[in-house]
């Protein structure tokens, strides 16, 4: 699937006529309706849309927490639609990083342990896992809070831990679900700055949000309506971060 003549980078996640239907009593609801789209490597996408537009469903599918009712979804060329539950878990632990709106840290574990959870479920945890987790905690500014429990941290700090956790397994795709939804604007800016930084490093990020200013910071915007694509805006910001990186 290499298309050398195509200017867009090779897709990390590719949807092909994906439909997801839910049964609500006797009605059938189409949360996603024959959606086809490709997210390229190193891109930073904001997925926007009103509630009920299919944002969450799309995120669950992309996160391999759900399977399409029909159509195909490929991560780095692997068709996920045909995988069984264990294989999906494997993909989640190897290729995906999650950042949730409500942080979703495990209350009984401390910061370091929380960051290590994704590696906990890999059959062959990479060597130096703890060292890496320490480094990530350092990076998100929590190097001195390693043995704190989530309850002892502020919302912003918890979300930083969650981001560190999302990075620990070297994911090919980072999925953020309303990552700033529970934070005040000051803290939200810090988290968004962190995401910008990750994008600048070349990571593929997808953030689901309904806040316009969060969407405005992303490189590209995908707007959904009734389970279909409404608009696609590419390169709304002329990649300032990438240039900044080149200067350095």
């Amino acid at each position, binding site marked *: 699937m290499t298309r050398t003549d195509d200017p867009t980078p090779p897709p990390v996640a590719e949807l092909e006529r994906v439909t997801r239907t839910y049964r609500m009593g006797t009605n059938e609801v189409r949360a996603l309706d024959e959606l086809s789209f490709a997210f390229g490597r190193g891109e930073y996408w904001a997925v926007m849309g009103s509630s009920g537009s299919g944002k969450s469903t799309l995120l669950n599918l992309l996160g391999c927490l759900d399977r399409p009712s029909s159509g195909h979804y490929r991560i780095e060329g692997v068709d996920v639609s045909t995988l069984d539950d*264990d294989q999906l*878990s494997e993909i989640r632990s190897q290729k995906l990083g999650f950042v949730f709106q409500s942080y979703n840290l495990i209350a009984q574990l401390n910061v370091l342990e929380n960051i290590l959870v*994704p590696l*906990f479920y890999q059959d062959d945890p990479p060597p130096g896992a703890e060292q890496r987790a320490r480094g990530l905690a350092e990076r998100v500014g929590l190097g001195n809070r390693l043995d704190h429990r989530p309850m002892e941290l502020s919302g912003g700090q918890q979300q930083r831990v969650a981001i560190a956790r999302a990075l620990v397994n070297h994911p090919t795709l980072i999925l953020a679900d309303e990552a700033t939804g529970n934070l005040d604007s000051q803290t939200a800016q810090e988290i968004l700055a962190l995401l910008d930084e990750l994008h600048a490093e070349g990571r593929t990020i997808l953030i689901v949000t309904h806040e316009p200013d969060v969407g405005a910071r992303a490189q590209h915007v995908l707007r959904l309506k009734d389970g279909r694509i409404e608009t696609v805006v590419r390169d709304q910001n002329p990649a300032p971060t990438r240039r900044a990186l080149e200067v350095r």
Partner: protein
Amino acid sequence: MKGPSLLRTVRLGVSSLLLHKLRSLLTMLGVLFGVFAVIAMLAIGEGGRVEAIERIRGLGTLNVLARSVKPPEVFATGQQAVRVVSYGLTEADLARVSATFPGVRCVVPVREIFEEVRHGDRAMNPRVLATQPIYIDVTGRNVVEGRFLAEEDERNVANVCVLDYDVARYLFPFESPLGQEVKIGGDYFSVVGTVLPRVRQESDPGKAGAGTAEIFIPLETGRKWYGNVQVKIRAGSREMEEVELHELVVAVDRQENVMFVADSVREMLVRNHPNGDYEVRVPLELIREVEAQARLWSFVLAAIAVISLVVGGIGITNVMLATVTERTREIGIRRALGAKRNQIVVQFLVETVTLCIVGGLVGVAAGLLSPWVLEQVLHKRAIVTLNSPFLAFSISVVIGVVAGLYPAWRAANMDPVEALRHE
């Protein structure tokens, strides 16, 4: 799941348990008591069995006992004022048994004399048994002091007697009875020895509480002084009984022959005593019966205890179901971050199995102490057999797995999306 990841999962389970110490402790108690109960119940069963068998052993496992029994249908012979009831084993039976049956080592006749025994102002009613010297060999009794009856006593028709230890202690509380005199009915006997008492049996004749105290005198002496006809005073009425021999102890040479000899003796007696004025007891048979009974009892007791263990298991299932619901969100997070279903199953199974292992071990420790406690409190003999702790412990672990399986399965099969949304 590989070794190191299993180890991590075990550590995770244990730390979850420690998070709710009281809850874990209470859940564990069900298993603890269950395991304790299984061990204690089996120990009580075993203690009862051993005790019963020891009692029967006192009769001699190589013996067949034939005893005279007053037949119910025998009433007064005629309308005389004084009734004489005649029944029981005879010298002819003795001769037949000793002469005919192969495998019989010897036959020891025993007569019982119903007289009061006195020494000074102390009186008691032990069984007075007139028998031959060989009696002590076939019953395996032990001499404490002096000697048992001897052949020359028999020849001389000597007025000598041997007391069992209970009688000796009662009649001669402060001195050795050797060389002293006791009065049996109207005659004086000098004491030549004492023997260990027999372990009491439920089926022993005589008043309850009278014990099994026994005095032995030579057979010939008994015959000479007390005759075959004895007067019994019962509930105000006088009754005369004529019994030649009260008991025959048939000693068999080898254990394999015991049942054969017992059957032969029964057959012979049926033919010669159509009125059924006898009973044959075979200690070996009794032991087998007791063992069968003890097995049944142990089974019943253990079954009850296992039920309590199962109830403990149900308690664990209940608590784990609540825990799984409470931790729905955590399960969702773990699943989203890559936990496979079986890793979630193992995480929760580790918790229940750990509870059962710890509870089981403490239960085993308590169970091992149970015989001591039972003896102190209930004065019951209890014996922990070697395999019962292993049995109880493995049942508890199996119950832990079974009890944890359903909650763990529930946890693993939650939809991760739903679980993440759970508040």
